[in-house]
């Protein structure tokens, strides 16, 4: 299997070389030519931006380079960075959105980090002296409630839970009544991981969403889609279908402490106009950060 051997040696270099690739590329390129663009495109694809999206980004860049008669690769770097930042800043939630009471419905496919993100979010709001209530509406996965319960203890917030196998919408209903009684500022609802192509599971999610709209119209409602940065182009399909079902209005991008870049959110921000709000950078309770387009793009392109 000669192809494997060659690949292996080729890839051995890929990762080590990846950091400061753009810098290297830009510094080593004297002129802006096709090869330069190809390398730029490779970088974007390796960051999971997607081949189609990368192609269209490069085409935009080319056009601008022509129009502005740019000659130096260095100028292209700025151009690319600006372009990506612009896309990612689109529809960004205004920072001072301080609307309470609030309810956050957290959704996503299996294993992306929903429950962990909820633990981190609970802690964050608690630090801001908000009264937080967690709703353990993942009644499906084994020990999901126990997992959230441990996070509620770590964050020092209350939790509403039912038994495994019970109706998740009923958990949310109870949480809302409890929040009203206790005058909680914010409810965060955990939900079971579900693949977006499972019709019945998406229906279940819609039902939870309807309960929120009916029982808690006075609350500011946020639907947060959790995406794993390791995920490739399927994240677009996830975002599209979850948006159709429950109208997501923000993304939490997790596991950015690994080597994955999460570039697929660029296509999502562009095509679906759903902004990234938070990023997960570890398994600790304070490993959650507000999303900053500038920092994200710098990391994506390995430039500073």
């Amino acid at each position, binding site marked *: 299997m000669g192809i494997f051997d*060659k690949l292996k040696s080729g890839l051995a270099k890929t990762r080590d070389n990846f950091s400061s690739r753009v810098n290297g590329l830009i510094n080593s390129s004297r002129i802006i030519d096709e090869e330069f663009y190809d390398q730029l495109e490779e970088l974007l694809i390796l960051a999971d931006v997607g081949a189609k999206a990368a192609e269209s980004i490069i085409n935009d860049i080319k056009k601008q380079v022509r129009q502005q008669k740019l000659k130096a690769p260095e100028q292209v770097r700025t151009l690319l960075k600006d372009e990506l930042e612009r896309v990612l800043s689109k529809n960004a939630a205004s920072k001072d959105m301080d609307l309470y009471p609030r309810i956050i419905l957290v959704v996503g496919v*299996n294993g992306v980090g929903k429950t962990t993100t909820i633990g981190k979010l609970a802690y964050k709001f608690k630090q801001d002296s908000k009264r937080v209530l967690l709703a353990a509406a993942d009644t499906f996965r084994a020990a*999901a409630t126990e997992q959230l319960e441990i*996070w509620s203890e770590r964050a020092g917030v209350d939790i509403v839970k039912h038994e495994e196998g019970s109706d998740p919408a009923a958990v949310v209903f109870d949480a809302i009544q409890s929040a009203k009684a206790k005058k909680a500022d914010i409810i965060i609802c955990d939900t079971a991981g579900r693949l977006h192509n499972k019709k019945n599971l998406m229906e279940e999610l819609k039902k939870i969403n309807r309960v929120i709209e009916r029982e808690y119209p006075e609350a500011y409602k946020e639907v947060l889609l959790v995406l794993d940065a390791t995920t490739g182009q399927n994240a677009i399909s996830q975002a599209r279908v979850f948006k159709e079902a429950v109208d997501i209005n923000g993304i939490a991008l997790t596991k950015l402490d690994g080597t994955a870049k999460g570039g697929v959110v660029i296509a999502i921000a562009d095509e679906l106009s759903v902004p990234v709000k938070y990023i997960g950078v570890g398994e600790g309770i304070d490993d959650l950060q507000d999303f900053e387009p500038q920092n994200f793009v710098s990391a994506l392109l390995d430039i500073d």
Partner: protein
Amino acid sequence: MTEKLQSAFKKLTGKGKLSENDVKEAMRDVRMALLEADVNYAVVKEFVNKVTEKAIGQGVLESLTPGQQVIKIVNEQLIELMGSSQSKIKWASAPPTVIMMVGLQGSGKTTTSAKLAGYLAKQGKNPLLVACDIYRPAAVKQLQIVGQKVNIPVFSLEAADPVAISRQGLEYAKKHSNDVVILDTAGRLHIDDEMMLELENIKASVHPDEILLVVDAMTGQDAVNVAKNFNERLVIDGVVLTKLDGDTRGGAALSVKAVTGKPIKFVGMGEKLDDLEPFHPDRIASRILGMGDVLTLIEKAQAAVDEKKAMELENKLRNQQFTLEDFLDQLHEIKKMGPLSQIMDMLPGINSKKMGNVQVDDKELGRIEAIINSMTKQERLEPAIINGSRRRRIAKGSGTTIQEVNRLLKQFEETKRLMRQFTSMEKSGRRGMLKLPF
């Protein structure tokens, strides 16, 4: 209908050997398909180069266009790369066989451990699950619950480290005559040195017979880094691909196979605990290529098209003598390929929306046949003479309506026009519209 015929005609045009240009053109689309399926950039590059080299100069099968022929080669190469179906566990010469599950956070180790235990129990084994994830909240509890669901005992220890837990788990298995031990380890990042060291220590302590890397089928470009690191530090024996019941194209499978050379042994197909299946390289190959069952279609087309008739037809086309009789012949050819709805489903990029008003179902095909059969020979050769009264007669004879007869005649004219365009394009030497592969 017209689009359908168009594709049926395209396959008449491919003859001879694949030119460098044929291959390059088709490979551009292949490259895009692989990248959009999340196959790693470097893997794609290598693969495309390799297959391009291999394909140039190969003969084009009579019934295929060069584009189709290239796809056929690509598919064969992909299947070869993915390896054969090897859903076997390496059994220890002296039981218990120790299987260690490793992977990133959230990849599906715990569920897969329970599924695998259940799967092996059905084969007459007596497995023990060992809970080595002491980090994630309620991970041990989760394994206990799923273990109970598949009726497999779970070994766990409070206040012990994963190395000690796995060692004592192994002892426990020996005492309780469990012949398989499955270690469910905590998810970890491949660059987390300390956590990777923990796995190395477990390995050194219990000498697993199988180390299985659990990979989420939705993984993107980073799959190569993950697989490479885990393999370098642990020397894995195989891969389990999870969440394939989603709609991902699953290019990670190819990336992982390419960097580790290790077989994909099982795939996870759902949340239920018996949703574990052996791996099928051919299925994943066409899934990655994203062409539905286009390959099946190619095979069917190959089998169905009568070469001599095809040649005749091509001549007629060139001389623009295509008649309703030929139209009927073509319908029969298409019919041989199977139910139309099924054929339509097999075509990538063709959706019913795009087909617009040209609804093709088998019933309609039958009616079209009846209409043409009700025509006189002369009418078939010279449809222009079919006036109002002839239309009425034909409709009556075929048990259809005048509207249907009109529609057919219109479709026929449209087909003819399209084919004229098509043939003139061929003549001008440009293989326009030959986007992958129809």
